[in-house]
């Protein structure tokens, strides 16, 4: 079975900027895949090449086994792209927009599916409203709906929740996760790393047009074992042996970074030995943001 998305040694230069510098990736059917990276890392360029909006200088990209240039018709039928920019056509209402978009894919009688998408994305009450009069969140929903009119097996979401309220985020992820469970492959780029951590089974990190990490989310999270504990004590001073390890924060609490829980255990024992009581303690587990920051620093 061919990968849902296959990219090998993809390169693209815009003037003096090397937007993609030999990117290779395989995303398997049914995966919820995250593409992370700072601004200008090449995420949108990669998506644009897959979607046929940008032409690569060299390398190869395929969607569901179809070459994005040679078999562009099959590729575009297989791909639903939610663009990053909040764009809309002010001449039409929501239903017209979705019917026209279906028509571009050669779908004549698509009203059943259009109604279903509108229902899931809470667009149904706005079906006859001009797109110009929709709120930002509603426009974003419409973009998602437009990407789904042809039931593509591969869905690409380029920062779909940028500037979107909590309600929409929740309903959007519920809907997209449902599609993923039904077998759709999802490729997501986002700056919200907690979203990527919660949703994506595998993640690639891009930096300056190169893949600097690509692994399962679980394996990536294990790359850093730096835990952090924040403690409040009933004393102002701590045992001298720990003074180098503990940081005193402005709010009066103490912070310690550790990789082994045994370290924490020893600290607590020493505090008890010095008759210092812990009045409050918070533990911070390493998250994707830590891993991301770490990888971006190291590479």
């Amino acid at each position, binding site marked *: 079975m061919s990968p849902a998305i296959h990219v090998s040694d993809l390169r693209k230069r*815009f003037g003096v900027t090397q937007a993609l510098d030999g990117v290779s990736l395989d995303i398997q059917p049914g995966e919820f895949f995250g593409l992370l990276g700072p601004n200008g890392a090449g995420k949108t360029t990669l998506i644009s090449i897959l979607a*046929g909006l940008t032409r690569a200088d060299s390398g190869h990209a395929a969607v569901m086994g179809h070459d994005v240039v040679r078999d562009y018709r099959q590729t575009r039928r297989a791909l639903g792209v939610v663009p990053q920019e909040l*764009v809309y056509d002010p001449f039409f209402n929501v239903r017209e927009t979705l019917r026209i*978009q279906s028509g*571009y*894919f050669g779908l004549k009688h698509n009203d059943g599916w259009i109604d279903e998408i509108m229902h899931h994305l809470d667009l149904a009450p706005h079906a006859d409203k001009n797109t110009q009069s929709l709120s930002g969140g509603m426009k974003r929903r419409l973009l998602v709906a437009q990407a789904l009119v042809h039931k593509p097996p591969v869905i690409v979401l380029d920062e779909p929740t940028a500037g979107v309220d909590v309600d929409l985020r929740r309903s959007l992820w519920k809907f997209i996760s449902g599609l993923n469970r039904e077998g759709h492959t999802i490729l997501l780029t986002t700056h919200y790393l907690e979203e990527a951590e919660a949703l994506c089974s595998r993640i690639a990190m891009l930096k300056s047009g190169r893949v600097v990490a690509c692994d399962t989310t679980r394996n990536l999270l294990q790359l850093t074992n730096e835990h952090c504990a924040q403690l409040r004590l009933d004393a102002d001073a701590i045992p001298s042996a720990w003074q180098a390890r503990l940081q005193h924060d402005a709010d009066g609490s103490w912070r310690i970074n550790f990789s082994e829980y045994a370290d924490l255990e020893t600290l607590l024992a020493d505090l008890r030995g010095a008759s210092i009581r812990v009045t409050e303690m918070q533990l911070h587990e390493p998250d994707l943001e830590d891993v991301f920051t770490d990888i971006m620093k190291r590479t």
Partner: protein
Amino acid sequence: MSGLSALFYKEMLRFWKVAVQTVVAPVVTALLYLLIFSHVLEAHVEVYPGVSYTSFLVPGLVMMSMLQNAFSNSSSSLIQSKMQGNIVFVLLPPLSYLEFFLAYLGAAVIRGLVVGFGVWAVTLWFAPLQLPHLGWLLAYALLACAIMGALGIVAGIWAEKYDQLAAFQNFLILPLTFLSGVFYSIHSLPPFWQGVSHANPVFYLIDGFRYAFVGHSDTDPWLGLLVAGACFVAISALTLALLRSGYKLRH
């Protein structure tokens, strides 16, 4: 619905939704030209024997309106889509460059014909109906709208800002249409400017179209048809080459 018919339908719906601006306004403008010029010149000018100035002017005005509106339809649709970013909705689906071309061209031709018919219909009050050559009328109307529709696609793709498109329209399309014998016969010009007019393809479109109405023309309508046909083929080839290469659309 094929991709082509969906895009054609979208383009039709786009201009029809703002018909006051895209159809009614140009008809009113042409009517104003007719009222002013025929009022001033009717008693003084007889371009062809037995043809009143108003009857001479009407086909020129109809053709000028068709030319400008066909150009305007494809060019403004594309520049708006590019500026607003919604061109992406047309670039993401599996539409070929030929389908893209035919849809924009088809809608531009229809808009040109609708406006042309509107102008002609309102001028019936001022000039009695004469139509000796229906075949020539259709041939020239279609070719004229198609040439300008294709040129509008080129302009819409090339322009990156509204003022670039306005420059294209004001410094190329408008002079070509105004200086092509809409309001006068080129035989009234000095020999040099007669020669210059013969290098303007729009002159042949207006001259041949006028022949369909009044039975008189400055040049042979067959020559005009040949020039117009050649122009259409050349501009279409250019447009298709641009679309195929993805020029300014697919980076």
